[in-house]
């Protein structure tokens, strides 16, 4: 469904990604890991068509997003939704307006219909609609903001692929657990593909069975947990070293 072919990307002549290639199939869950600044988030921005690579192709359903105009990209974005780092909620809109943003902007649905959908979605992400629907995002906790952002992305176009950029960064363990649980729930119940970017190894293990490791803009690993455990690539070993014990012990956590 999503395919990156020899993608090279530089920002202001600073190389970010070098010759990265991989593909993600329908209903597959993939975690992209790597140290901070290794180019993980850039991959999600490239898949969304927010940036264009200098070299290589990004194919979504066999169509190259890099050569599309903005209108064609919008069609692709109806199939893919992205949850940005720290949620990126519109801070001048209420929680209700944030979650119903797509429907307010792009459909002719009545306000009451949209509100009903928003309430339903807030229930799905584990929040009490009555308490927060009219609240501004800055009055929410970090964990609640992430869940609202996930709800906003899910309600947008019923996407087939969800991209999560560092969904648990900066959250306490309890909020992290809730967000991970929600991501798994959305993946399973909606039968969608999930691509998660993170540098938190325990989160990665909880979310997927395929792992891609990016280091210094290069893809240095692509495989499952068992392969990750025994991988002897020095850059992967260095990155995983602090978590070696937890990778050894933990089998994949199943929330759903």
């Amino acid at each position: 469904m999503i395919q990156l072919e020899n993608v090279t990307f530089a920002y202001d002549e600073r190389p970010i990604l070098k010759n990265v290639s991989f593909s993600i199939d329908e209903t597959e869950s993939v975690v992209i890991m790597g140290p901070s600044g290794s180019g993980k988030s850039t991959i999600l921005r490239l898949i969304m068509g927010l940036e264009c690579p200098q070299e290589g192709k990004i194919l979504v359903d066999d169509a190259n997003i890099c050569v599309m105009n903005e209108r064609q990209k919008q069609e692709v974005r109806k199939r893919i939704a992205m949850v940005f780092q720290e949620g990126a909620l519109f801070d001048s809109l209420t929680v209700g307006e944030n979650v119903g943003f797509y429907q307010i902007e792009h459909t002719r649905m009545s306000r009451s219909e949209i509100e009903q959908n928003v309430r339903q979605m807030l229930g799905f992400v584990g929040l009490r609609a009555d308490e927060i629907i009219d609240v501004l995002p800055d009055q929410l906790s970090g964990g609640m903001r992430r869940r609202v952002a996930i709800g906003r992305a899910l309600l947008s176009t019923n996407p087939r692929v969800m991209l999560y950029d560092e969904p648990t960064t900066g959250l306490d363990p309890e909020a992290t657990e809730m967000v991970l649980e929600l991501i798994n729930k959305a993946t399973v119940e909606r039968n969608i593909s999930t691509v998660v970017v993170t540098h938190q190894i325990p989160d990665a293990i909880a979310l997927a069975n395929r792992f891609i490791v990016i280091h210094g803009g290069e893809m240095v690993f692509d495989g499952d947990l068992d392969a990750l455990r025994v991988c002897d690539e020095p850059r992967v070993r260095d990155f995983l070293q602090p978590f070696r014990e937890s990778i050894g012990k933990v089998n994949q956590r199943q929330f759903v």
Partner: protein
Amino acid sequence: MTCLSKAATIGLKHERKYAIFAAVNSWLKTFAWDFQQLFLFSLRVIRGMVSRKFYISETLEQMYLIGVGSLYLVLLAGAFAGQGFAIAFSNELADFGAKNYLGRIMSIAVVRELGPTLTGLMVAARVSSGITAEIGAMKSSNQLDAMVSFGIDPIQKLAVPRLIALVLMVPALTIACDAIAITGGWIVATLIANMSTAIYWSSMKERLIFGNLFIGLLKPFVFSFFIAFIACYKGFSARGGTKGVGKATTESVVISSITILIVNFFITKLVHSAIRGYL
């Protein structure tokens, strides 16, 4: 030994010269790049103005924020600037026995120059900083990218309503500024310069003619485009987190203020040669 030290001094001088040349070269390149980007951005905003999707509630909200929000500032500045002008002119005119022309002078100075420039500068200071900071903060927190991912063009949703609001409100604010500045002049004329109210107003009305009113309204109309383009562009191109947004905000105010003064000069020069007969 002396030869060597001379050669070293010459080498150092050359190095310094080269460093200055390189710095100027880099500054010119950055300026040209920024100017080109601002121009292209302005074209995109103008194209956004004529496209089908129009955000009426955002435009009305911005009109309120810009118009009502800046009104007290413009009135305060206009009142004091008008009175200051009137005091300075009445003293000078009195020396030539031409005090009765104060209204006439006030009319020309305020309607053609003071009102539009003062309003433009006040709006540039208050509004352009707000626009740049708001859009810049949205950019640094990925809200603009989120908007794009939901199929919304941020230029159309954020820049176009602000431009339309400025185009409608800056001329209106200028009229308010003109009125309060001329009224300030009248207060000075009657209370300090001992002129009669009737003489002040009748001489003022004499110069309230088409040419002056045209310049007086053309200027804020043009200024509003520059304020909107510069403020929005600086917001959309802000980089480097909160520090970058702060820098972009400062640049936005400085560039739009300087631009207003430069554009004011050129409009005055151009219009004076074009419609001299109507002035």
